[in-house]
């Protein structure tokens, strides 16, 4: 672990970690759902609303200029963070879901037609599956779902078979929120481009947790959410290559996305504004900029290294539970900090409730991946997921609590 990475110091930056839940310190292990926020990000919102708040663009008064500067500089931070060459390739959305829908409505309906194919995988979040069901159904295109291997990694042979000349888009998660697998998206991008297809990377679970460079990956689209990476809720990003954005029709209509308007027609603003109809979420965009500052200072490499350590430790500890099935690859070089488990004997909800009694927050359910659950022959898992502020100690507490739970449900005694 790098010297600058000091988890105890980091924890002090997160006010919510002082909370007690049912008499115990909060161990927040539901990060794949949403992350907690450091003081800097919260304070950034307060500063904004107490000093600069105003609508952006077009205003000649000082507040509006200042708000616009802060807002556009946040866009620049995102662009740098992703290694993009032009801030105008960063489109603000509410989150990954809206970003994927933007691509579907604006690019998909124009560029995917009858007889074409879209490739996704069996591990996609509903937002990267149901959206393409819509496009495929409406356009009479084929939706190909690439299966997984035994340890829930992408079946690369099937993937290769799926990507042929009919394919117009490969839309795939960089890392799975449900089983943790990290996909070789750079290689997949190359394969997609070989047949002239575009690639959309759902970065909801990668951008918060590891270095992601859009130029290196050569991705056409990248979608992610701020709330999973220390930023406020309500803000997310669609990155896309400039020439693709230029070629796309707008999605929603309204103020800011138009250039000139007559009663019967309108012309469009330049990118990225063309895709940002209506008053944007200025404050939370600036908050995402503050979150990126925070993450950058810690270092994305360090964050990834910390999560690998935690995951290795947890996976090893979980070996003791013969009653539990743990999903995802055991090789943490291709796995995010996500630990889904399932027992025949205790339902995930019961595990979740009992862990909550001990102050440990995990998520239970299908994690918006029902088809994946079905392919595993289960309807739900319990899932612990780690981030920058989690500790070995919290994993020990998790393991102890699971141990109690399993014992309790087999003997009825605590």
């Amino acid at each position: 672990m790098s010297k600058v990475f000091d988890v105890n110091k980091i924890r002090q930056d997160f006010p919510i970690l002082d909370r007690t839940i049912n008499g115990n310190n909060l161990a927040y292990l539901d990060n794949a759902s949403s992350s907690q926020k450091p003081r800097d990000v919260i304070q950034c919102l307060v500063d904004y609303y107490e000093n600069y708040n105003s609508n952006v663009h077009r205003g000649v008064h000082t507040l509006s200029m200042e708000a616009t500067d802060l807002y556009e500089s946040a866009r620049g931070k995102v662009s740098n963070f992703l290694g993009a060459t032009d801030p105008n390739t960063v489109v603000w959305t509410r989150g990954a879901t809206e970003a994927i829908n933007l691509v579907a409505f604006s690019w998909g309906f124009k560029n995917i037609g009858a007889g074409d194919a879209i490739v996704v995988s069996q591990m996609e979040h509903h937002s990267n599956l149901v959206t393409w069901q819509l496009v495929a159904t409406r356009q009479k295109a084929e939706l190909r779902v690439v299966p997984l291997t035994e340890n829930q990694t992408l079946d690369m042979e099937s993937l290769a078979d799926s990507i042929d000349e009919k394919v117009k888009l490969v839309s795939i998660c960089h890392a799975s929120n449900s089983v943790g697998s990290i996909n070789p998206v750079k290689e997949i991008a190359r394969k997609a481009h070989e047949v002239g297809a575009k690639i959309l990377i759902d970065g909801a679970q990668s951008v918060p947790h590891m270095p992601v460079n859009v130029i290196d990956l050569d991705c056409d689209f990248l979608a992610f959410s701020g709330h999973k990476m220390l930023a406020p809720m309500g803000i997310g990003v669609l990155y896309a290559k400039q020439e693709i954005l230029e070629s796309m029709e707008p999605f929603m209509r309204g103020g800011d996305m138009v250039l000139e308007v007559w009663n019967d027609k309108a012309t469009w603003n330049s990118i990225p504004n063309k895709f940002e109809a209506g008053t944007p979420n200025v404050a939370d965009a600036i908050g995402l900029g503050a979150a990126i500052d925070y993450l950058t200072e810690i270092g994305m490499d360090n964050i990834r290294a910390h999560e690998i350590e935690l995951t290795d430790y947890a996976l090893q500890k979980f070996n003791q539970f013969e009653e539990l099935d743990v999903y995802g690859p055991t090789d943490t070089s291709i796995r995010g900090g996500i630990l889904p488990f399932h027992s025949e004997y205790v339902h995930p909800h019961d595990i979740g409730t009992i862990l909550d009694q001990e102050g440990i927050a995990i998520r239970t359910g299908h994690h918006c991946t029902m088809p994946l659950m079905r392919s595993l022959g289960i309807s739900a898992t319990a899932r612990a997921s780690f981030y920058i502020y989690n500790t070995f100690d919290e994993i020990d507490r998790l393991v102890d609590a699971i141990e109690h739970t399993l014992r309790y449900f087999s003997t009825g005694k605590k």
Partner: protein
Amino acid sequence: MHELYHKEILKHAKTPEFTSQLKTIDSSGYAINQFCGDEVRVNLSFRDGIINDIHIDSKGCSINIASSSLMAVEIKDLDPNKGTLLIDTYKSLMNSKIPDHQPKRILGSLAVMESVKEFPIRIKCALLCTQAFEDAVSGLHI
């Protein structure tokens, strides 16, 4: 932990009753919790207007399985009207709206489910069985 997983609940969760198929099904109801996938099927057979046998097929968490089993215990040998009254009383109990004229004691062993009220998010697990029951009797002309 104790409060939620009352011994009786745990017992019914582990070894639910009324798990055998019925020879004849007079009425059947189903309910699913959209968010967790838990489900309950309730099959009823009647004799002389009385629920004289029940088959419960429940999948999911302990609260769902236990409440379904306990419900079956209590509605057996009631007529559908009395069964519905019992279910209404149970729902009122779980939603903390017991009106004066609904005596809690008719609930019998099902009353142990009250401990789930400490865990608001699990109340819907304890009520899934009532939807299945209501579905089963909704087609009857009672």
